[in-house]
Structures are given as structure tokens and as C-alpha cells.
């Protein structure tokens, strides 16, 4: 089985890779599943909205109808947020796993999650995190600063980069915990953010982070072909004429924007960035662009499915979506390992 590319940035189809027709079928199936997840996300919630009211709420909105307001003001924004966060985390996971050639890497490994958490903890302790927009700004700032620091320390090799990320995450986590333990008010403010959720964001202006995610997703598609060569190792990539340093830098920036923006708007949500690339590994053999494309579809499916479940799983109220993704993600990861063996990891 040959996986060597014939030219920089592009790999020929392998024996196990799906044919063009197969890929089209997978893409169509994915889009149908995504549509189903979107419909479920808009139709299901704490309040029972008659199915007959869903379509009119979207096409013939009546501002005096409670059902229409629930659909338009709460569920549609929440669904859009789920799509953006799911796509961002899944693509960030695909990029970091490809770049690091480490199947256990996930977006938070560069310090993004703990950087955002540390900034929010510090902001709460200093009284700077009073509003949702303020928290958003703090989260983004923390994520970016943490990644810049990690990059400054480990930019010379991917391994150093990951180690720097893990080390900084541990330090930030420890310091954050210390601040929270010594300040009950900070703990109180932080405890809800510490578990990722898509609820309660519909009134916050999320234009900037959502535009940032959209641009970064486009960027991920553009860099994916070059990343194909880098995925084969630096020496091979150099031989194939790829500018490894530039590809790595651009990819890291994209990972930071995607994971940082997603974490800032939804809080820490693990497993999506880890599990989605694994689920797609067999379907996307040897093609990073294909992996990135499908991650943009399957990430939102997983996120919307988890969020829909989170609304109805308990009759006493909602469960943060991060808890559901953890419940779904754990068994899925085990299933992938058992189904495809350790090789898939």
C-alpha cells in the first residue's frame, strides 16, 4: 500500500480510500444526517412546541406567538452556535492530530482551554468578568496568550510544542484552582463556565467569534492540502518542496482561533475534537482535505445530537452539553479502538 504523494501537498488515493463516488455518497449521507440533527435541535427542547409551528416560525414569523419566539429567539441561535462550535472543535482536532501526528492530541493540548479558563478565573477574581461579552473577551484573550506562549517556547519542533502546551496547561490549571479555592466568589462565578454548554448564549452578540470561526474553517480547507505533505514527516515534506515552517505556523494559528473561539463562547467541551477525527479516519485515509471537510460536517452532528440530548435527558432541567459529549465520546472512542484496533490511534 503506497501512501507517498506524487507531488507536494497531494496524496494519491490508496487501496482503502473511498472512490470519488464513495466520497460523494459519504458527503451526501453526512449532509442528510446534519440536516436531521439541525431539525431535531430546532424541534426538541424543554418547552413542547408543536411540529406544525416550526416551519411557520422560520418562514412566517409571528412576534406575538410564544412558540415562534422560542424557535426563533432561542433554538435557532443555539443551533447555529452548535454547528459553529462543533465544526470548530472537530476541525481543530483534525488539524492538531495531523500536525502533531499524535492520535491522542486534542485542541486543548496547546493550552487553549486552560488559558481561557485561567483568564476567566483571574477576571472573576479581579471583578472584570461581569458580563457575557466580557467573559467572551477574557476567554479569547486567555486562549490566544496561552498559545502564543506555548508557541514561543516550542516553535522549533512539534514535540516541544506539545510538551510546552501540556506543561503550561498544568501550570495554569493549578494556579486557577488555587485562586478559586482561596476566593469563594471566584469559584461561584467560575463554576458554571467550567462545564461547556450551548445554553443561555442567545442574547450575547457572538458575531465576532462566529465570523472568526467561519474564516478559520475556510483557512483550514486552504491549508489542508499542504498539511498532507507535512503529515508525512518534516523530512519528506521538505523533499516534496513544502514550506514546513509556514504550514505549521498557519495551522497553529488556525487551531488557536478555532479552539479559542469555540471555548470562549461555549466553555470547555472535550472529546469532540478528539473523537471526530478518529471516527473519520477510515473514510479519509491519506487525505487531510477530506478529513477537514468531513470534520466540518460530523463535528456539528455530534455537537447538535449531544445538545439535543442534554435538553431532555433529565426531567428536572438541562445538563451541560460537555457532560453529554463526554458520555458519548468515551464509549465512541472505545468502540473505534475495538473496531479498528490500536492502529486507528
Amino acid at each position, binding site marked *: 500500500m503506497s501512501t507517498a504523494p506524487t507531488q507536494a501537498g497531494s496524496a494519491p488515493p490508496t487501496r482503502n480510500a473511498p472512490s470519488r463516488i464513495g466520497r460523494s455518497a459519504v458527503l451526501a449521507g453526512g449532509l442528510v444526517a446534519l440536516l436531521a440533527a439541525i431539525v431535531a435541535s430546532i424541534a426538541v427542547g424543554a418547552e413542547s412546541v408543536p411540529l406544525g409551528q416550526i416551519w411557520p416560525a422560520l418562514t412566517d414569523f409571528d412576534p406575538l406567538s410564544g412558540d415562534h419566539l422560542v424557535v426563533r429567539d432561542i433554538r435557532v441561535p443555539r443551533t447555529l452556535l452548535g454547528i459553529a462550535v462543533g465544526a470548530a472543535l472537530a476541525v481543530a482536532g483534525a488539524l492538531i492530530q495531523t500536525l502533531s501526528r499524535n492520535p491522542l492530541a486534542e485542541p486543548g493540548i496547546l493550552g487553549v482551554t486552560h488559558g481561557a479558563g485561567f483568564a476567566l478565573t483571574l477576571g472573576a477574581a479581579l471583578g472584570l468578568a461581569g458580563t457575557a461579552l466580557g467573559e467572551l473577551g477574557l476567554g479569547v484573550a486567555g486562549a490566544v496568550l496561552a498559545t502564543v506562549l506555548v508557541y514561543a517556547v516550542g516553535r522549533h519542533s512539534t514535540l516541544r510544542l506539545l510538551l510546552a502546551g501540556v506543561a503550561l496547561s498544568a501550570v495554569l490549571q493549578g494556579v486557577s484552582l488555587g485562586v478559586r479555592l482561596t476566593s469563594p466568589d471566584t469559584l461561584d462565578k467560575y463554576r458554571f463556565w467550567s462545564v461547556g454548554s450551548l445554553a*443561555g448564549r442567545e442574547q450575547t452578540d457572538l458575531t465576532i467569534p462566529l465570523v472568526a470561526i467561519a474564516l478559520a474553517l475556510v483557512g483550514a480547507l486552504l491549508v489542508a492540502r499542504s498539511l498532507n505533505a507535512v503529515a508525512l514527516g518534516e523530512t519528506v515534506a521538505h523533499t516534496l518542496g513544502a514550506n514546513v515552517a509556514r504550514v505549521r505556523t498557519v495551522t497553529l494559528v488556525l487551531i488557536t482561533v478555532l479552539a479559542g473561539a469555540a471555548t470562549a463562547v461555549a*466553555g470547555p467541551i472535550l472529546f469532540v475534537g478528539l473523537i471526530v477525527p478518529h471516527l473519520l479516519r477510515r473514510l479519509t485515509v491519506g487525505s487531510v482535505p477530506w478529513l477537514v471537510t468531513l470534520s466540518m460536517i460530523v463535528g456539528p452532528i455530534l455537537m447538535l445530537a449531544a445538545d439535543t440530548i442534554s435538553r431532555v435527558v433529565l426531567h428536572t*432541567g438541562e445538563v451541560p452539553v460537555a457532560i453529554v459529549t463526554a458520555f458519548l465520546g468515551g464509549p465512541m472512542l472505545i468502540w473505534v479502538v475495538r473496531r479498528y484496533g490500536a492502529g486507528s490511534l
Partner: protein
Amino acid sequence: MTTKPMTLLRSSRLVKASVAAAAFALTVSVAGCGAAGQETSGETRQFKADNGTVEIPQNPQRVVATGYAVPTLIEADAPLVGISSWQRGEPMMSDEDMKTYQDLPRVAGETAAETNYEAIAEQNPDLIVIGVPKPIFQEIDTERLESIAPVVAIGPDVPSAWKEVSRKQADAAGALERFDEGKREYEQKAEELKGKYADALDGLKLAHIGGYGEVENGNFQREFDGSWGTNVANDIGAEYYGQVSEKGEGSRAVSEYPSLEQLPSALKDAEAITYTVNADGSLPEAVKYVLDSNLWKNLPAVKKDMTFPVKYTEAATYGQATTALEALDETFAPLLKK
């Protein structure tokens, strides 16, 4: 050979004598400490608290208070020598009470986990009044506290229980006289307002939005009769219709946290809605989340301009509740014109 046993004997006697002297000194010292704390509290009585029946001084002179007991015992002029921090009550304290609160030594933080046992011991109290609910009391090292002074745990199970609980706290601390004055003042004011708003509130179906909703989970707090945001209004005749769909313990018995999606169905029958505001009139984040939604603006009561901000919903003493009554009088005044 003979000198050694003698030396040992002498040495042994010397040690025994030293130990006896030290023990005597310690006994005197401890007794002295005890006397300092109990010099005017020779008589004791049996007191029934959440932690059982406890023997406490008849007339305590050095009281340490934590939790809900802090504002109660400050108002009641109890002989306090140490208190926990109680930030939530600060906006409702009078200037005089605030000065007392600020001057007293802190022996604990805002939570039971922040109890500083050494700081409590340093105050040499003759009574420790722990004003936290039963589940929280279990977080405290009772044995350690009991080695310092008698401990009585008196905390509310449900929000409206502050009335009985605060009286019991004042009773334990021997400060009922001033306490009962405050109680009478409150009851008098409540009775007056009850008459004033009798017609306006008669049969009015009220609902209350509390300040403890969880924006991050997309929900709001609805409070029913007997909750923090409603119990003082209940005393002037306001009735908050409905009840929690699934009763829990403590405040969960009288308040619930539905999704914001459920706002229209939850409050569609409300003829008037009250909502918690901060002492300065600003909206808590959880209430702002509800009031900024289009679902809120679409509610029948909102369209009829039948919404009323309520201050001091955390009142847990008669003094604070009297302040809350005055604020309610102000907020319900437009009802008299409708």
C-alpha cells in the same frame, strides 16, 4: 553503684515535681481561661438545637456567630466577640450595625469550609452559634468547636424559616429583648401594609423571578410562596400562585429553575410579576437575562405593565425584613392607582 539509683530517684522525683507544677500551672491557666469566658455564666440551661440538646450558659457573655446568625445577633445587640463574613447581608445593614459588623473580629469566611478554628479559640467564647442549614453544618468540625465552647447549630431549612430560626439564635445568645422589639416593629409594619394593599392584592395572581437563575444553563428562577423573594411580600397579603413541579430540599421546596423556553407557559396566567433587583435597583444578571428576552416582553402581565422590582429579597432578620417591607411599599404603590 548506689549513687546512680539515687540520682535516678532524685531525678525521677524532680521530673514528677516539675510535671506536677506544670500541670498545676496549666490547670490554673485553663481554669483562668474558663473563668474569663464563663465568669458571668455560671448557670447553664439545656437548649435544643439542630445538633441536639446542648448545655449552654444561661447568660452568655462571649458569643461567636457564623452564617445567618451574624446579622441576627448584631441586630439583637448580642455580646458578640467574633463573627463570620456575611457579605450578602451588608447592603441591608443599618450604619450602626455595619460599624459593629466591620469592627468585630472575623473568625470565618463566607462558607462553612472557611471556618478558622484557631481564630474562634482566640476569642475565648462561652457560646458558638452556627447559623447554617443542616447539610452545611456537616462540613464543620463540631468536635473541635465543642472543645472550645458549647456549640448550637441553628439554621433555616426553608427560606421563610428565618423568622423562627433567628428568634432561636437570639434566644441562645440571651438577646431576646432587643430581638423582640425588632420583631414587633416588623409585624406592625406588615400589618399596616396588609391593610393598605388589601384590595389591590386580593385575588391577584403573582409570580416572582428570583436572582439565582443560571444564565449559563439557560434557565431562570421562579419563586413561589415562602421563598426568599416572596416571604416578606406574603406577610402583606401577596400570594404567589402555583408550586414547584418537583419539590426538593431547602429552597428547592419553594423555587424551581425552568428553561427560559418555558417562560411563556410558566407565567402566562400571572396577573402581576415581581422580580428581584439589587439593593441599588440594578438587575442581577440572572434577572436581566429574563427581562431582556422577547418571551418576557410577550407575557400578558408585562404587556399590562404589571411588573414590580423587589429589593432586599435576601432579608433574613426582622430589621432587614422591615427595610424590605418599606421597599415593597414603594414598589407596590402603583397598584393602588390601578
